[in-house]
């Protein structure tokens, strides 16, 4: 029983991290039809920059703030210089953001060294509670709480503010929103920065969660985020959340019960879902 519970908490925490990464990606694609393969690199940059701020200042909160700032700045540069020239061209978008991913990953190795770096949770979150024979690791609960908070905040912004209304309308029918005289480019920039900030936050929270970080997490988790977005349905926040939790739980349980298949489980999940539902679990647009 405690094994099941532990695995569930594990899976939920991983799911929350993946959600932070995937939600921005999904919104960016849904709203502006842009495929951003460099999203994972921002995740990695969040982990490294946040970890650096955290270790230099000793304050976890400052680390988080630093990670988000770096993520937003990277997002700004990315949108302005890289994405803007290739609007509307999927092939170029895939190719160019892939190049950015490579370069940003290498830059991490230049700045922070090619070896992996270990990051510890802050003192407050380091231990675990024992509740009736079940070990609850504080940091995992914290990650789950952070993920749920971000989801709720995002949900509120999307469903209950004017800006959210415009974003949702933009996902559904961009031309119509533009025809109403709304500058969708500015809305998009906002969503892009929001997505980048969330990716960096996810990276920062990931660092103490896994204990060690290396430059390849940008590639690995970028791919994972794409799988999640594809499974959930591009442009759907709820779909991304559902798919992230699904992937997180499935990963945790498979790693425990069928470790040899754990590596392939996400790929297989995506294959099966795309074969039968080419637009993802909650997707209506696309294919």
């Amino acid at each position: 029983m405690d094994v099941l519970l532990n695995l569930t908490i594990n899976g939920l925490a991983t799911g929350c991290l993946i959600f932070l990464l995937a939600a921005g990606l999904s919104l960016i694609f849904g709203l502006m039809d842009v495929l951003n393969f460099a999203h994972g690199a921002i995740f990695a940059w969040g982990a490294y920059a946040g970890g650096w701020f955290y270790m230099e200042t000793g304050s976890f909160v400052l680390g988080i703030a630093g990670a988000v700032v770096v993520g937003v700045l990277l997002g700004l540069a990315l949108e302005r210089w890289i994405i803007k020239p290739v609007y509307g061209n999927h092939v170029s978008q895939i190719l160019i953001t892939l190049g950015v991913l490579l370069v940003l990953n290498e830059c991490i190795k230049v700045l922070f060294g090619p070896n992996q770096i270990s990051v510890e949770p802050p003192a407050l979150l380091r231990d675990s509670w024992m509740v009736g024979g079940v070990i609850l690791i504080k940091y995992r609960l914290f990650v789950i709480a952070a993920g749920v908070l971000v989801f709720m905040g995002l949900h509120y912004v999307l469903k209950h503010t004017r800006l959210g209304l415009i974003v949702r309308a933009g996902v559904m029918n961009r031309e119509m929103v533009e025809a109403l005289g709304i500058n969708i480019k500015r809305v998009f920039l906002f969503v892009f920065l929001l997505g980048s900030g969330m990716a960096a936050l996810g990276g920062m929270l990931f660092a103490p969660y896994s204990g060690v970080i290396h430059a390849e997490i940008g590639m690995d988790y970028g791919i994972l985020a794409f799988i999640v977005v594809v499974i959930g349905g591009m442009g759907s926040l709820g779909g991304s959340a559902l798919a992230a939790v699904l992937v997180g739980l499935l990963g945790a349980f498979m790693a425990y019960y069928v470790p040899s298949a754990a590596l392939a489980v996400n790929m297989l999940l995506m294959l099966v879902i795309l074969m039968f539902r080419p637009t993802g679990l909650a997707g209506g647009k696309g294919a």
Partner: protein
Amino acid sequence: MNRGKTSTRVLFGLAALLALLPLGIESKSMLILLTQIFLYAVFAMSYDILLGYTGIISFGHAMFFGIGAYTTGIWMSKWEASLLSLWLALVTSVILTGLVSYVIGALSLRLKSHYYAMLTLAFAGLFFVLAEKWRSLTKGNDGFTFPIPDVLRDRTALYWLALVFLLVSFWLLRRFTESPVGKVLQAIRENEQRTESLGYDVLRYKIIASIVAGVMAGMSGVMYALTLRFVNTAVFSTNVTLDALLMTIIGGVGTLYGGFIGAALILLAHTLLTDLAGVHWIFERWMIFFGGVYILAVMFFPQGIMGTIRQWRQKKKQATKLAGQPE
């Protein structure tokens, strides 16, 4: 017509020069490097069939390369290191890559470009995991060395074999791209809807393109295994696909020669810059330079080196034509 003749002459000259090169080169590592350029050129050209001629982005090209490399390794180590097993490896990898590319193409080519890219990534990931886990056959991540036929143990012989392989592949691929099927592929790249409305079965043509690309990539994998005499799961990694992508883009999409130029540039620069790592550590991170060049190429020279040259030549030709016309 005239241009076709001169470029054929240039090609023959280049081929003859490359064939004579080993007589003047003493350094073994240089020969190996050139051999690798030849086989990666074929790999990049096969990718160009997808990206440059048909307009499909695949993230799983490494799986065909890997299948070729592993069938070679397995035949040579489990059976005997003779020319017969090389032949069998070639046949097996053609059958396997053909089959795999057909199945994957039929399953996923009807999806949109980004979904297809993700699916090929997933399939290649499955092959990677399979190679890691099927240890009795692949020895997992450690890989294994294997003997190769005695004739090919001589580096010069292998060099010539790779050169012949490159020339034959280039000739075959050029015939393919200039055939009616190749023309339809280019029409799909330019405007898929219109090609479909003209009555062509677009999916079928895309599957043909992916089979041709897959089989050629598999054969370059066979050559790769012969050159290295070693194979491990790295042949299935995403980096191998990225190599093909970088070579094709930098060399020039939709040109075939581009693959050769891209492969030569990247492998030469890689060797040179890694040698320079002793001078300054930044050269160790040579991917930054290439990533930068690659991004600029996608942005400003979407045709790559060969494509830009070709475009420039066509413009010049048009200009002379216009100037020659009486007012």
